[in-house]
Every structure is written in structure tokens, then in C-alpha cells.
């Protein structure tokens, strides 16, 4: 039943996607606008089919229908509700269903947004989105059918062989295998992938608008304004998804860190870098009419990077802590990536002579110059991450030898590039457009420079002699105070002119230019993040404690006492752990319970760390051994770790701010139009 309904929904969505692609095609081929009424039906069917497929999969999971191979392999009776639902995207096929749903939702949103404004690129954009949907739903309908039926149950649990056709003879597995333990060990796992997917899939929209604009030879700013808002939205979700992923890694994997330059982390970081570059360079085009072709390259690149990321995650070509699923769809994804790249770059090449020739910049010492520097740094950064990720694959393919490219390589590039980016982030936003005269610029950065120097000198004298920490504090303080000074000056000026109170003036200013101030919120977030990364990394402490019950060990200013072991049976797992009494200066501050969680026989237990967070920083304990004689644990201390999470979320919030105001204005305009 589930198999029929599920595959049926997918086929409906596939048919609708074909119709969307087909009906929009005339617009894409430059044969005029497409009547939008003809698009409404297919878009709604696409949305309905995609939602139904996800719903049917979730119903199957909740009902525990093990006749479906995916459910037999990723669900077990007794799994808590939240992880049962999350199992819907815990493995390859299910995650493609979620991908398809998000893509359909974006298609619907694009239809709504562009239809109402009678956008000249609406037809072409929808057509491209339709083609992308054809690929993903085609994948589900053929090689990655999430509703494939189990035709031979595995001996222990789960399904050994599955058949594509819903009418295949079922061999019902008695028990499910359950999702990968790592994926059901923490609540963040239910949140992080969907958020990340919204970010990933969101880049389909800028790509579609860009392709539609190239194909229709519409190089007006309309494509850029439209694209920019969609990119900011996708970027906000991607940022949140990356931060939540890092957090999950920290709270679940128990290796004592949050970012490892793992291929899959890199795969999410490359589109982030390119989208960040685009969000900045689009401003230059909007204000000064330059960088048109570069903006197309960035939009295409960011989208291609999301597909590359999916390929790396899902094909199993890279060894990664994220290699949860390996399957045969790798070649299909690679072919898709090749088609995307070759197709869009070929289109770009045939249109490049039509892309308006640029009026040139007057001077590098200007806002435009800062944006250029930003773009250069971000592009190089993306290239470094890309080459470092792919290099071991290339060497293995061509030379047959293994080369490790890891944290030291990435850090060596990322650290100086980040310093330059943060410096540009401080100077850029206060630099005037066109030509910045030296006096004007100095006037604007003088006070921030002094504030930064005072803070950095205090750090040197009182806190830290680590040069990374000093430099990051210097740069971050400069960025934040430059933004603060700019706001104060603007508010004073407005208050003097209008007699408004300062709060009203702030509100008015920020609402008048949400793009700029949303950006500044993100900049403050990056500054906080940078301090958090530098301090937590460079002043981290680590050690190993081996204790018998009743014993105490000192670590990083804390006294850690091993009280007793404990065991706890939960519906989906057995938790074995150690109860630790943590005190500081004789005062009890926390009870920590690091544990080893077992999710079934034969699966090695998942090391689950315990984290005690304070404003000063985190104490992080991860068990390595626990038996009757005692416990052994790795311990870390990370000062100011919370700044990493806070900074990341503030960075994402900047996108929310700039878009909430866009939505507000649109509502206002609609209200005014009606009135």
C-alpha cells in the first residue's frame, strides 16, 4: 500500500515537473512570456506530489511498515517519535525525498512571488526549476526509489535485497535495523539536515533566475534584484545549517571539536563562500553596473557546488565521518553535475558578448574596491577548500597513492584569508562609493582603530600572549566599533535633523536600508565567531583522566570526582555512563554524565560526551573506557566556546533581518495598493 502510494506520488510529481519545464520552455527559448495561468496547475501538482511522497514515507515510518526496504533499514520499533520522523531523511533515498519537497516548495514560492509581480523572467525561471525537479524525481522514480519493496529480508535485521516495483513479492523483515546510531543520538539531528537542505536547495532559485536571464537575453537588473533576495534567504538557511551541524558534531561525535575540514563540511562551506561573494558583488552591480558576468559565474558556481557537495556526501568517494550512506547513484549525480556545468557555461559563453560592457571603476580606494577585494579573497578561499577536498581523490585516481590533505593545509590558508576578510569587513562598509578621499576614510576609522588598539593592548597585558588571539581581538574590535561608530553618527545626524529620539532614529535608519544593516548584523556575527574560534582553539586545554570510583582529578581549574557508574535502559538504546561531580574552588558546580550509548548488538557504542557550559567556557568530557575498575575519559576545556555558536547564529540572523524588512515593505506596498 505504502509502496504504491509512495511511488504514485513520486510519479505525479515527476509528471508535474515535466509539465512545468515544458510549459515554461518558450520563455526560456526567448519566444516571449508564458501565460502564468498555464503554470499554476503543474506547480500545484508538483507541490502536492512532493508533499504526498514525504507524507507517505513518514506514515510508513510511524506505522513501522517493514515491507519497505528503506523503512526496514532505517527504523526500529521503540525509536522515539522525533527520531522516527527524522529517519525520513536519515539515509540516501529519504533525503532525496526531502530534497524534492524543498525544491517543490521553492518552486511554489517562486511562482507566487514572481507571478504576482508579473516578472518577465517568471516563465523561464519556473522552467529551469522544473527541469531540476525532473532530475530529482526521476532519480526517485528509478535508481533511488525510497519505496522499493523488500524482496529478501536480511538474517539479523533490515533488508538484504529490494525490488523497485511495488508489485514485487514481499519478504517481510521481522525487525528493522534502525538508523545510524550517530543520527539518533541528539535532537539537533532532526533539525540540522532540513535546515541545511533548505539552504542547499535554495541555491537552485538564483541559478534558475540566472539561466532564465541569460537565455532570454534579459540582462537588466531585474534578474539581479530577484536573485539577490533568494540568495540571501538560502544563504541564511545554509549558515544556520552549518552552525547547527558544527554544534551537532561537537555535542555528539565526542572527538572534542566542531569543525574538522571534513569533505562534507567543506562541501557545505564552498557554496557558502561563493554565495557570500555573490551577495557582496551584486551590490556593486546594482550600484555601479559592473561585474555582470562575474555575478553569473558566482550564481552558477554556488549551485554547482551544492550538487558537488551532494555527490561527495552521497557517493562514498571520500572517506568522511559523514559517509552514512553509500550507493550507486554517485555516477548519476556526477553526470548531472557535468550537464549543469557544461550546459550553463556554454549558455554563458554564447551570451557573454551581450552582457553589458562595464563602465569602469574610478578607483580601487572605494567601496567597490573593498567589494572586489572581498570577492577575490572569497573566491580564492573557495578554490582552496575545493582543491584541498578534491586533491586526494585526483591523486588516488591518477597516481594510485594516497595523500592526506587535512586541517593543517586548510588552516594555513584559511587563517590568513580570514584575517584579510575581517579587515576588509571593517574598512569596506565605511568606505564611500566611487572615490574615498583619505581624510574622509581616516575620519571614519580613527576612533575604531583606537578602540581596537586599546582592547588588543588590554588583551596583551592581561589575558593572552597568543598572537592569533591578539590579532583577532584587534580585528574584531575594529569591525564592531567601526559599525557602531557609523550607526552613532547616522543616528545623531538624523536626531538633529528631525528631533527624533535615538531609538526611533535607529529603528528608522535600519528599516530604511535593511540590506545594509542586515549585512552589518552579519558582520558583527562574524566578528563574534572569529573571537570564539581563535580563543577556544588557542587556549584549549586537553588531557586524559583515569579514575576509580571516589577518586578526584584536577583539570583546567576544576576538580572532577568520579562518583559512580550508571546504566539506564531507554526505548531505543542502552546508556552506560559515569556520574562525575565537578567542583571549582571547593564549590560543587555541576554533575556531568558522559556515556556510551548502545543501539543494538554488534554495533559499537556511540561515545556521547558531556559538556558543562559557562560564560567562561566549556568543560567537555568524553569517555574512552568504562569498566568495573574505573573510567578513562578525554577531557577538554574550551574558553568562550559559546561565542562560536552565538556568532554563527547572529551571522545568519543578519539575513533574516534584511529579508523580514523586504517582506514587510512588500506587505505595506500591497496594503497601500488596495487602499
Amino acid at each position, binding site marked *: 500500500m505504502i509502496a504504491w502510494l509512495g511511488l504514485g506520488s513520486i510519479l505525479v510529481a515527476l509528471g508535474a515537473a515535466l509539465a512545468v519545464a515544458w510549459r515554461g520552455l518558450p520563455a526560456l527559448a526567448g519566444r516571449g512570456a508564458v501565460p502564468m495561468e498555464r503554470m499554476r496547475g503543474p506547480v500545484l501538482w508538483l507541490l502536492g506530489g512532493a508533499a504526498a511522497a514525504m507524507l507517505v514515507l513518514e506514515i510508513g515510518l510511524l506505522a513501522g511498515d517493514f515491507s519497505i526496504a528503506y523503512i526496514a533499514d532505517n527504523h526500529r520499533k521503540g525509536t522515539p517519535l522525533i527520531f522516527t520522523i527524522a529517519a525520513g531523511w536519515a539515509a540516501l533515498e529519504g533525503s532525496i525525498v526531502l530534497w524534492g519537497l524543498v525544491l517543490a516548495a521553492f518552486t511554489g514560492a517562486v511562482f507566487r512571488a514572481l507571478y504576482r509581480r508579473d516578472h518577465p523572467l517568471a516563465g523561464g525561471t519556473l522552467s529551469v526549476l522544473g527541469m531540476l525537479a525532473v532530475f530529482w524525481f526521476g532519480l526517485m522514480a528509478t535508481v533511488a526509489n525510497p519505496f522499493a519493496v523488500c524482496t529478501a529480508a536480511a538474517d539479523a535485521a533490515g533488508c538484504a535485497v529490494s525490488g523497485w516495483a511495488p508489485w514485487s513479492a514481499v519478504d517481510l523483515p521481522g525487525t528493522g535495523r534502525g538508523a545510524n546510531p550517530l543520527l539518533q543520538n541528539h535532537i539537533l539531528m532532526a533539525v540540522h539536515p532540513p535546515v541545511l537542505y533548505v539552504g542547499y536547495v535554495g541555491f537552485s532559485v538564483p541559478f534558475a533566475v540566472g539561466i532564465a536571464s541569460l537565455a532570454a537575453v534579459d540582462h537588466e537588473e531585474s534578474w539581479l534584484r530577484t536573485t539577490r533576495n533568494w540568495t540571501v534567504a538560502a544563504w541564511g538557511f545554509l549558515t544556520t545549517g552549518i552552525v547547527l551541524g558544527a554544534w551537532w558534531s561537537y555535542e555528539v561525535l565526542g*572527538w572534542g571539536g566542531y569543525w574538522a575540514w571534513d569533505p562534507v563540511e567543506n562541501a557545505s562551506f564552498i557554496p557558502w563562500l561563493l554565495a557570500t561573494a555573490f551577495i557582496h558583488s551584486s551590490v556593486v552591480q546594482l550600484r555601479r553596473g559592473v561585474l555582470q558576468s562575474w555575478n553569473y559565474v558566482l550564481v552558477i558556481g554556488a549551485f554547482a557546488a551544492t550538487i558537488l557537495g551532494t555527490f561527495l556526501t552521497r557517493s562514498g568517494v571520500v572517506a568522511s*565521518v559523514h559517509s552514512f550512506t553509500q550507493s550507486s547513484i554517485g555516477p548519476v549525480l556526477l553526470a548531472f553535475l557535468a550537464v549543469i556545468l557544461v550546459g550553463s557555461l556554454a549558455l554563458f559563453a554564447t551570451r557573454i558578448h551581450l552582457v553589458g560592457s562595464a563602465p569602469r571603476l574610478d578607483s580601487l580606494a572605494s567601496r567597490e574596491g573593498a567589494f572586489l577585494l572581498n570577492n577575490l579573497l572569497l573566491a580564492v578561499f573557495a*578554490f582552496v577548500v575545493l582543491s584541498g577536498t578534491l586533491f586526494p581523490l585526483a591523486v588516488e585516481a591518477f597516481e594510485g597513492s594516497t595523500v592526506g590533505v*587535512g586541517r593543517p593545509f586548510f588552516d594555513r590558508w584559511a587563517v590568513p584569508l580570514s584575517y584579510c576578510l575581517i579587515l576588509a569587513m571593517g574598512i569596506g562598509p565605511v568606505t564611500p562609493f566611487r572615490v574615498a578621499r583619505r581624510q574622509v576614510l581616516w575620519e571614519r576609522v580613527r576612533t575604531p582603530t583606537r578602540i581596537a*588598539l586599546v582592547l588588543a593592548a588590554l588583551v596583551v597585558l592581561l589575558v593572552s600572549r597568543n598572537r592569533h588571539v591578539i590579532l583577532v581581538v584587534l580585528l574584531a574590535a575594529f569591525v564592531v566599533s567601526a559599525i557602531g561608530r557609523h550607526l552613532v553618527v547616522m543616528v545623531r545626524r538624523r536626531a538633529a535633523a528631525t528631533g527624533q529620539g535615538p531609538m526611533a532614529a535607529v529603528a528608522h535608519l535600519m528599516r530604511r536600508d535593511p540590506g545594509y544593516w542586515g549585512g552589518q548584523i552579519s558582520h558583527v556575527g562574524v566578528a563574534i565567531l572569529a573571537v570564539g574560534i581563535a580563543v577556544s582553539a588557542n587556549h584549549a586545554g586537553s588531557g586524559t583522566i583515569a579514575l576509580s570510583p571516589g577518586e578526584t582529578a584536577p583539570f583546567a581549574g576544576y576538580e572532577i570526582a568520579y562518583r559512580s557508574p550508571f546504566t539506564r535502559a531507554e526505548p531505543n538504546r542502552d546508556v552506560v555512563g559515569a556520574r562525575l561531580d565537578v567542583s571549582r574552588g571547593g564549590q560543587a558546580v555541576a554533575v556531568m554524565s558522559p556515556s556510551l550509548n548502545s543501539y543494538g548488538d554488534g554495533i559499537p557504542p556511540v561515545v556521547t560526551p558531556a559538556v558543562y557550559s559557562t560564560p567562561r567556557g566549556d568543560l567537555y568530557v568524553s569517555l574512552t573506557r568504562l569498566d568495573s575498575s574505573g573510567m578513562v575519559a578525554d577531557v577538554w576545556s574550551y574558553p568562550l566556546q559559546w561565542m562560536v555558536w552565538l556568532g554563527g547564529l547572529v551571522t545568519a540572523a543578519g539575513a533574516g533581518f534584511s529579508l523580514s524588512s523586504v517582506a514587510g515593505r512588500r506587505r505595506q506596498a500591497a496594503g497601500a495598493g488596495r487602499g
Partner: protein
Amino acid sequence: MADRRAIMAGAATLILAGIVGWGLGVGEPSDQDRVEALGARIRCPVCQGESIVDSPTPYANDILAFVEEKVDEGWSDEQILDYLEARFEGIRLDPRFSGTTVLLWVLPAGVAVAGAWLAARRLIRRAEPADG
């Protein structure tokens, strides 16, 4: 009066900059720092892309203990890495500057230079335009 204030402000700025500069300049890595830094550059042979510092496996801890021993004995970083590399293929997480891996270091720099050159050539209005 204004002059004197400007001079005072300038002097204060210079002193602060001096303190910050001094802070950036000092700091010799201790033996423990060296072990950590070296360990971060060595891949744990039985893990997936983790360094021996990050990995909690006993094997990684053994190698880390070996590194610590050799640092104590006064071996140089390169000596230790060479010794390990002779025994485990691809154990370095930061590939050595030779052979194919040169690309990994040179290409990004090349992209940076090419990008800067292209941007400067295409986008900057020349000081004296050849024709109006």
C-alpha cells in the same frame, strides 16, 4: 591646544600599537606546543581523515606518544615527519612541498594573482584614458 591633544592622541596610539606589536612578537612555542602542532599534521592511520591529536584511538595515542618522545630527544619536526612517512604512506595531513602536491600550494596563489590582475585590467579606469 588642539595640536597638543592631537600629539597626545598620536602618542597614545603609538604606545598601544607598540604593546600590541610586542604581544604579537613574543612567545616561543613550548615542547608541548610543538607536540600538539606536529600531532595535528599527522594523520591517524586507522581513522577517517582525523589527526592523531583529534583521534581518541589507542593507535593514534601511541603515535602521539612517539612524537612526544622524539621531541624530548631533540629531533626536528622534519626528522620526525620523515621518519613516520617512511613507515606510513600518506601520513602527513599537510602534504609536503614536492611533486604533485606543489600544485596544491601554487594553484590557489596563482588564482589569487590571476584574479587580481584580471580585475585590475578589466575594471580599473586608467589614470589617463587613451581616448576620451
